[in-house]
């Protein structure tokens, strides 16, 4: 028998866990990166003003800073996809666990979790 209420609660619990974990990682990552990028911008400007770096270095470091900022955004999007994948698979695991438990109790063989077709 499938207890729908219990299964639904297990799904929500699993989903919350996967999403919360992803949100925690992303939040601390955002804080660390935005702070790091701001400090980097200040260091570069200060070093140019005080003559600690050349004009060429100043341009190169700024170019690097732009590239790192763009990649920060990409990394955040990448993290989101990982969280989505983990949340999705957590739900699938719970659902198939529920189905297979019911089939097992009814004396039927368990079904393997199917994989999404490769697009």
């Amino acid at each position, binding site marked *: 028998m499938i207890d729908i209420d219990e299964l639904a609660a297990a799904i929500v619990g699993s989903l919350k866990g996967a999403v919360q974990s992803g949100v925690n990682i992303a939040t601390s*990552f955002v804080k660390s990166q935005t702070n790091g990028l701001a400090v980097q911008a200040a260091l570069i400007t200060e070093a140019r003003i005080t003559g600690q770096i050349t004009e060429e270095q100043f341009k190169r*470091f700024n170019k690097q800073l732009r590239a790192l900022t763009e990649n920060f955004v990409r990394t955040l999007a990448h993290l989101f996809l990982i969280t989505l994948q983990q949340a999705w698979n957590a739900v699938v695991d719970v659902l198939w666990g529920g189905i297979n438990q019911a089939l097992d109790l009814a004396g039927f063989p368990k079904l393997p979790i199917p994989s999404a077709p490769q697009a």
Partner: protein
Amino acid sequence: MKRHLAGGMALGLAGRVVALFFLLAGCSAQFTTSYDAALVSGLNAANEEALVFFSEVSVGVSTGRFADLAPRYDSLIGKFEALRLQSKARPVPALGLQLGSKLPGCGSAGECLDSSNIALDEIVGIFEGMKGDNRNLGLTAAAVQINKAGYQIAIEQVLVIENALRGK
């Protein structure tokens, strides 16, 4: 009141549920690359080497020290380039690229899935830049600090992804 499905009807109903799941795409999915323990081990080792190096040159280095330091730059450049190639060699699921192309910030071709490779490329660039500067004009303490700060931003972008992948 709990809701139950009668055991005798399990197959018929399970069959319908299975069909529903295929409709809802209730299949396990892979959108991203897989966790690579060997890559993470390599990253941790290279990161340690980099931080030791930054510490040693933190007060700045003259052109006179270049001959001694050249092998250190080469070791770091070589290691991070190898890690970049190792990371890039991991297959990216087409499903992930398709999803990514629809996600703001990911890029129209799902480039966000390349974020670790791009960060590692920046790291190689940082050490190549340092090597050139050390050889040509020396590095002030401020220049070393800027390079180190840039390195730390980039390596964090790589490590956060690898740690997240391990979580699955």
